[in-house]
Structures are given as C-alpha cells and as structure tokens.
C-alpha cells in the first residue's frame, strides 16, 4: 500500500483530485472541515499545532498497521496546521482500493486513531 503523509500550512481546498490508481475500484476522499460553531459558540477559526516529525511518523505507523486489516492500493493524508478558518478543511484523506469495504474501514479506523494518538492539537485563537 502506497502511503503518503503531509503536514502543510497551505489550504487543502482543490488539491486532492479523485484520480484513480490503475486497477482501483473504489476511491474515497474525506475532508474534515472546521465548523463555524462548537458547542453553540460561534467559531471563526482554529489554530492547529503539531509535533511535526512524530505526527508524520505516527500517521505512517497507524496506516501501515491498518493496511494489514484493510489492504488498499494507496492512501494520502494531508493535515493542515496553523490558522484554519471556519469552512476550510483541516484534513483531507484520499484512499484508493480494489473494493470499497477496505477503503471505508481504513478511513474510519484511521480517523479514530488519529484523534487518539497523533500529536496534533487544535485550539481556539
């Protein structure tokens, strides 16, 4: 499984085209977006901070581990850091696989693990 992990300060919009890997039957693109409110409070932006080298390594470790249960063709993760305005994406994940079940499983589990273990933090500015 081809694994690509990036942490960037640039906007993620329009960057991940749902290109198809040769032979893939399923492509899933997930965008996690900063919502304009949190617990009823209006929110203009969030500041994301990462322990970058470990965050990258940890994402790769998680994906390599999950690829044994959910073998996919490729996965690309882009996590944005710095200030992310409401309505903009903080993360984009793109998975291509032969069959959809593996892509769905990998995506759901990866997002759960990301939120448990990857050293990235968001705070209100």
């Amino acid at each position, binding site marked *: 499984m081809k694994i690509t992990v990036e942490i960037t300060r640039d906007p993620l919009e329009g960057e991940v085209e749902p290109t198809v890997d040769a032979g893939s039957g399923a492509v899933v693109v997930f965008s*996690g977006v900063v919502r304009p409110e949190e617990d009823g409070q209006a929110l203009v932006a969030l500041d*994301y*901070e*990462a*322990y970058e*080298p470990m965050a990258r390594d940890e994402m790769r470790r998680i994906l390599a581990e999950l690829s044994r249960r959910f073998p996919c063709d490729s996965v690309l993760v882009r996590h944005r850091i710095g200030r992310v305005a409401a309505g903009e994406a*903080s993360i984009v994940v793109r998975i291509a696989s032969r069959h959809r079940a593996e892509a769905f499983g990998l995506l759901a589990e990866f997002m759960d693990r990301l*939120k448990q273990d990857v*050293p*990235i933090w968001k705070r209100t500015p």
Partner: protein
Amino acid sequence: MKILFFAQLKDVAGVGECSVAGDGLSAGELWDLLTARWPALAAHREQTRLARNGVYAASGEVFGADDEVALIPPVSGG
C-alpha cells in the same frame, strides 16, 4: 535531554522547549524534575503521555541524556 512542550503545556511552561540535565531517568524521575521547575505541570501529569525520540514511551522506558522527550497532552487533530 531536550524537553518539548505543546499546546496548553507550552502555556504552562512558558516555553516550547528546554534542556534538562539527567541520564537514565525513569518517567517518574523526569516528572519530578519537571514539576519541581513548573509546579503547574503536575495537574496535567495524569493525562499527559511522554514520547521519546518521536515514539510514545512504553511503561518502564528510560530517558537518556541525548533523548528528545515530548510531553504530549491529549491530542485533538483531524
């Protein structure tokens, strides 16, 4: 060894990183050193994990003079 602080722990320590003299420290010994210097860190100890050179430390792991040790408060990425 080099200590890294993130998120709210950076506010508590007032710095993003610092150096601590010590070698072959247990997690408990390291925490004792840190909370002696920043007593307010103690309130975060329970929910903070330690990473050694970019990997979560296992229980019983020992921290050396050349290690980079990160204090990882609960994460919230995604």
